[in-house]
């Protein structure tokens, strides 16, 4: 199956879904006002992947900023992943900045609403800010 690669912009994340490499990555910031538009190809792709998934699928989500419009869409993505988990051995690794309790909290709340294996992985913040 073809890969889905969407380059990151200042306010949209990198999406790198590559079944042959076994990489399913989403990272950086997601702040678009029109999140539905941004996530629709992602959802489309996952729907297609569900037809012929790898036996094992590990998603790595590492998002540093999310607006609520994106949170809603990412939950849609997670619901789709939930469906995939019926046909593939799915793990969702939710990476969060060690100081970002809200991002951890959001991941936990998502995890309670679906039946996917979640792993929470803390990372040290890269110094994006000025000291």
């Amino acid at each position, binding site marked *: 199956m073809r890969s889905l690669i969407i380059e990151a912009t200042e*306010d949209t994340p990198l999406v790198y879904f590559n079944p042959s490499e076994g990489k399913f990555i989403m990272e950086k910031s997601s702040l678009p006002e029109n999140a539905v538009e941004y996530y629709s190809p992602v959802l489309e792709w996952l729907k297609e992947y569900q037809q012929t998934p790898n036996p094992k699928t590990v998603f790595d989500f590492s998002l540093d900023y999310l607006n609520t419009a994106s949170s*809603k869409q990412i939950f849609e993505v997670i619901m789709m992943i939930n469906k995939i988990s019926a046909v593939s051995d799915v793990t969702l690794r939710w990476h969060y900045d060690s100081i970002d309790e809200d991002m951890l909290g959001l991941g936990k709340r998502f995890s309670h609403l679906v039946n996917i294996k979640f792993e929470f992985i803390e990372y040290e913040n890269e110094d994006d800010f000025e*000291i």
Partner: protein
Amino acid sequence: MHSEKDSINYNLVELAYQLFTRVKDSDFEYIYRGGFSQKISKNLLSLAESNVKNTAGRTDLKNRIYFVMVEGLQNITKHGDEPEAYLDIEDSGMFAIQRKLGKYYITTGNVINKESERSLKPKLDQLNILEKDQLNKLRKEVLVGGELSDKGGAGLGLIEMARKSGKKLVYEFEPVDDKASFFYFRTEIQGEQSLYQESAPSIVDDRSIEDVKSLHKKLNEENVLINFNGKFNRENILSILSVIKGQMNISSTSKKVYGIMVEMLQNISKHTNNIEENIKNRGIFFLSKKDNKFILTSGNYIHNSDIDGLVKKIDGINNLSAEDLYEQYNSVLLDITPSEKKTGLGFIDIKIKSENKIIYYFKEIDNNFSFFALQSTIQIKD
């Protein structure tokens, strides 16, 4: 109409209204107070640039404005000759760009010592009496002979600012103590129409500097770090976010501030979606810091008929316990019917992140519209 009259921050929503209504819908006003690193200057420039781009049509006009901004910001960073004694005031250096009735005003403010004041004042006065051709001549002399500062001549930067402006440079030294002054420096740039009036008389609008000074004082009193008053779009929202990001140390609090800012700024454009074109996306946002709290205040127009619904929504969220908030959040996530605009996650998220009530305020403007302000407060924990 407002939510909490006794709130210590109530004066800030009033201030939002005052500032919002003093700027015409086609103009903008953008003020930053704080330290000036290279990175912050760069972000300030890109924010100013995105606004100038949207209002100034002509490329040469944009270039002039941009040039004056760069010089002004460099003057602040270069003349950081003040020792620690003025660190607080130094920190309150300021940069403002305003568009008023089609004219652009760029104002910088910073602490300088009395010696610099004594050498700077005659230079500025000298430039102000020169006519255009005399300025050009002086520029050539400086370019050929190098800096004339030891002879009391103005530096190239100031000469160029005077040339690009075509107007008198307006300045004021406000004494801080017997060793230092706060130096306000304002450059005016004519907008579109009058650009080609070569021999336009140089009328100095003295009130213009008084105006920005009094505004600066108000922002000092409330410790407003950044104030943006104009039209909000994707580009300038991202620039405002970068400025804030550049100004704060990374921490769990700054992450919350950033997250709430995103919601508030995007709310402005969402709420004004169904509004007349000329006031669409028009809003105000400022961030202030007081009593170990960050306070975020935003404001925009709203249809009078939308007020009741909004009040009900915010009151409802304000009255939820932490547990109920999460439940509400989940129920919005699980409901697949509402369109993106109606998710209602924004207010819930602001309340979750801030752990404080959302304060709101309405003031009727006319039969159709009111000014609607929103405020969120975050305790600084780290």
